[in-house]
């Protein structure tokens, strides 16, 4: 996969170790709580989401996540045709290390860099984009409609993406190491396949007879 920036630099997108992405953990700041009286003497703690200090800490947290993600994915980038003058000048001012990845980091906008981060994630792990693409290719339908357009009455229990990925790996008879070693779109396809199978089983079980 290759991306070309507006300035003509070419970025070849590679993969990073999936487990490094899973290990990224920056605790999200919590909003302050306000005690409100709901009924009689019963009180309830309500988060104050518009607290100015909380909003600033949230902004700092988003920026830190972005920086950590960028540092994680940089080894997966092969950059060519980039103008290094800006990175060299910034390095002289004590900003960055003057590397090609820094030249990208300080000249591209947040949106462009997030696009690059998303592309490396797509190549490395299970992503929403990968799941949607796999679902479309599998072409499962129920009464002529795409399976994903049917609502299914799952129980209210919820699981995280990592749990879904573990289950897909287990059902595909792959060890977790083997699952992590395959390309991101294939990982997504395993997850999409088992999710569709489950959905189909539910629809057949409920409406099949």
């Amino acid at each position, binding site marked *: 996969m290759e991306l070309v920036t507006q300035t003509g630099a070419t970025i070849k997108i590679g993969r990073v170790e999936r487990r490094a992405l899973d290990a990224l953990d920056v605790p999200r700041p919590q909003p302050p709580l306000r005690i409100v009286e709901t009924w009689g003497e019963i009180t309830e703690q309500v988060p104050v989401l518009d607290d100015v200090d909380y909003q600033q800490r949230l*902004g700092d947290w988003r920026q830190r996540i972005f920086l950590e993600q960028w540092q994680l994915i940089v080894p997966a980038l092969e950059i060519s045709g980039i103008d290094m003058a800006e990175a060299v000048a910034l390095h002289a001012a004590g900003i960055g290390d003057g590397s090609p990845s820094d030249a990208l980091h*300080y000249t591209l906008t947040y949106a462009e860099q997030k696009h690059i981060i998303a592309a490396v994630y797509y190549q490395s792990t299970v992503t929403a984009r990968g799941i949607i693409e796999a679902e479309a290719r599998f072409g499962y339908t129920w009464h002529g409609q795409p399976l994903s357009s049917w609502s299914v009455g799952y129980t209210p229990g919820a699981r995280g993406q990592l749990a879904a990925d573990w289950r897909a790996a287990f059902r595909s008879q792959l060890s977790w190491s083997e699952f992590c070693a395959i390309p991101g779109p294939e990982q997504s396809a395993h997850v999409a396949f088992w999710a569709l199978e489950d959905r189909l089983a539910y629809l057949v079980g409920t409406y099949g007879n």
Partner: protein
Amino acid sequence: MEIELSTGLTLTVRPVSQVAIDAIIAELGGYAEQARLAAMPFDELTSYIRAMDYDERARRDKAQLKQMVYMFGWGIEETPDDRVIEMLEELDCNSTVPQIQRAHWLIYVAGLTRADKANIIGTVMALTRVMNQ
């Protein structure tokens, strides 16, 4: 966009990289920390800074200088004349990078007050934020 400073100097301001601004602010402790310090009364702030250990104070001073060099060097269009460059060389600020020459001119030679410097930094940050929205 032009700003006029207390010394009579008029400078043209331009937007810079939001990513670089945020990286420098992160070195200064983040936006939340900056807002907290800005709201502190002056005597409380000086006590707070005095209570920092030397490494922490050195890190903050370095980040503040970096902020000024970046904002002045990249956020201003005017360039210093040859006489100023000669003066900078005499002061051992003999960088050949035009942005750094510009920053050194505004920091060391142009005689700007703290309020002028804060005005430039604030204007460049605001302009960059507006351009990135």
